[in-house]
């Protein structure tokens, strides 16, 4: 099984890196960009086969280490191998 944790700065928290990326894209001529937010994607290969347990485990990992919930929110997706 694979778990994917997507971690983003919460709305309202300044993201200077996202701003720098937006400015660079502006300079490159890409039009119509209103905002850029930069986050992290963490992929975990898991040995278990219970997707609900995996979700609970990865949520705990996010709460305790992977995300700083003072400033970041997270989303967890579980992909079961071999299933469409």
């Amino acid at each position: 099984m694979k778990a994917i944790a997507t971690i983003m700065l919460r709305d309202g928290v300044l993201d200077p890196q996202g701003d720098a990326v937006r400015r660079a894209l502006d300079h490159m001529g890409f039009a119509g960009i209103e905002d850029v937010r930069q986050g992290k994607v963490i992929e975990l290969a898991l040995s278990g086969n219970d997707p609900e347990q995996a979700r609970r485990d990865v949520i705990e990992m996010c709460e305790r280490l992977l995300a700083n919930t003072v400033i970041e929110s997270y989303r967890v997706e579980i992909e079961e191998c071999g299933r469409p």
Partner: protein
Amino acid sequence: MRAAVIVFPGSNCDRDLKVAFQNAGANVEMIWHKETQIPKGVDVIGIPGGFSFGDYLRCGAIAANSPICRSVLAFAESGGYVLGICNGFQILTETGLLPGTLLRNENIKYICKPIEIKIENCNSVFTSGYRAGSVVTMPIAHQDGNYYADDNTVSRLAGEDRVAFRYVDNPNGSRDGIAGVLSENRRVLGMMPHPERMAEPMHGNTGGRRLFQNLAGLMEQA
């Protein structure tokens, strides 16, 4: 005074902090992060600056979950004194001992220069050697020193007189110019400026020395 300085892989101000404690008269032990115990009789723990664990994931996040930090938490919760400087401040916020967090500097740049900070209150063992309202110079050296906490936390810190230092000219976008924060019991201090780097005449400025001398003086009396 007995001081313990925690050393993580990537700490780089650990020996400077040791010297600053020693010059104030302390006996100092260095404690590797894989240790699990704080030696008996330690009065104050110093968490030094640097790039613990390469700043991977988030500054201070991995160090905050290392074995020794569980003992640092227990030490603080039982009333021990803890001083976290720069990366040490980031680690203390990641452990939850201090509120808020340190974001990327507003201008994204790594800033390394001496800077003026205002002593906001002298109501702690770390700051009682200074005059409230006075301005001292200490260096900053960080890319993630932009103090952030939500509105309630920022006003609570101000209301409880727990902002130890503010920048005179906010260099990094910190909320209300906050440069150092005290815990509720005023025994845990986290600060981004480096008092240990301006503690001797040969450093060109001794603005940080009084913090260590005062701490040592009060510990000897106790």
